[in-house]
């Protein structure tokens, strides 16, 4: 399947890009993050992040579908 990934804040700095499209056999965000982490060596671990699929908060075990937009989010720091 093909996924669009968007990166923000520290993850964007570490990935070196704000978005990328990846081909993956990952069935859930946890598997996808693990694959991407192997490439980008993020300094944040999965349990420090939240994930969104198609602009909605999601769980790490949600089913991914072709063409999903997946965003891994560092801890919020607004205000």
């Amino acid at each position, binding site marked *: 399947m093909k996924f669009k990934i968007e990166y923000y804040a*520290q993850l964007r700095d570490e990935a070196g890009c704000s978005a990328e499209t990846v081909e993956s056999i990952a069935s859930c965000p946890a598997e996808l993050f693990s694959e991407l982490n192997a490439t980008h060596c993020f300094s944040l671990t999965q349990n420090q992040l939240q994930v969104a699929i198609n602009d909605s908060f999601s769980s790490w075990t949600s089913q991914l579908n072709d063409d999903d937009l997946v965003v891994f989010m560092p801890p919020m720091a*607004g205000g």
Partner: protein
Amino acid sequence: MFAIIETPADLVKLRVDLNDRAAGGYVTFEGWVRDHNEGQQVLRLEYEAYPALANREGSRIVAEAMAKFDIINAACVHRTGLLEIGELAVWVGVTAVHRDTAFAACRYIIDEIKVRVPIWKKEYYVSGDSGWVDCEACASKK
């Protein structure tokens, strides 16, 4: 109403938009960029948002406040981009018949915004360093 904004907030317009003849109280909270954090002298801040989800979650929080508290109206805006010391980063306004619920709803909104809305803050320090707030603290705990 919740909005991510890229230019300074129009405080007069925000106030006028909440004006209501039934309101007996109007409570606001302004979050400003301060010149220090955790022992470091801060030069400026950069806020970044995941706009689609930030707008959705921010709107949800304002709607929750409307449902939870006996208030007339509520609104919140949050800046993104580079902000200098003293600039307004976040604004919350609440109107109500009486002040108690307006204060409580305003507090609820800013507290929830800080932990639930996907917005991130990078601090630029006098020392020349910079860093994403919280993220680096998390990384050190891993």
